[in-house]
């Protein structure tokens, strides 16, 4: 039994609130070096913004903004970014995930290169966590049908 749920106030507030939430999530990911935060937390906030859209509208609205194929690609893209940065370190002649060697291709000293490598893998982790959160929520909430409002 699916109840059609439409409320102008809730939908407008959620639509207005979603961009600041996503901006804050990007801030949490990018500023994770200097304040509490990082890939996991920022990815969770990004996923929560999409879940808010599902609750206020329906699943079709979110699937129009973030297609299922895109979401599945993002799932694996995060892991690929993470292991790819590790493999770049391997190709440049250091150990796997040893970011200090990245100063050969980045215009910074080795210590700063470590910070930049950390930032890169935080971005990968954030993408992966966001996509997995959305995928788990959509699949469990709709029982795999991926359509209609929540019951």
């Amino acid at each position, binding site marked *: 039994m699916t109840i059609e749920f439409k409320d102008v106030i809730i939908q407008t507030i959620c639509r207005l609130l979603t961009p600041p939430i996503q901006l804050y999530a990007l801030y949490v990911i990018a500023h994770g070096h200097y304040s509490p935060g990082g890939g996991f937390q920022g990815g969770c906030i990004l996923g929560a913004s999409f879940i808010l859209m599902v609750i206020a509208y329906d699943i079709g609205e979110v699937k129009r903004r973030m297609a299922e194929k895109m979401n599945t690609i993002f799932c694996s893209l995060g892991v690929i970014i993470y292991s790819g940065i590790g493999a770049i370190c391997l190709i440049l002649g250091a150990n796997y995930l040893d970011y200090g060697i990245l100063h050969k291709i980045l215009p910074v000293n080795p210590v700063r290169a470590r910070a930049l490598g950390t930032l890169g893998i*935080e971005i990968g982790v954030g993408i*992966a966590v966001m996509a997995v959160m959305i995928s788990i929520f959509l699949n469990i909430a709709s029982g795999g049908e991926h359509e209609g409002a929540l019951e």
Partner: protein
Amino acid sequence: MRFFALIVVLITGTLLLYATVDMPDWGDPYSPANTHVSPRYIEKTIEETATPNIVTSVLADYRGYDTLGETTVIFTAGVVCILLLRRFK
């Protein structure tokens, strides 16, 4: 059945409560967990990784393998959810 479960839980809880007598005090700066590996991370994080947030530097740099495996775990969880539940028409 419930009674048996309660007995098991109470025995486990009593053993653990008995073991807490030997645990270090709460907030003790000289407990073994606080004096062995972590001071190295705290003192060297700026000069080795230029990252003031020690949690980030340990998570992504010193223990990168751990986080790689953990990202793989959540990726696997997402894929398993799609494989188990998704029904295409």
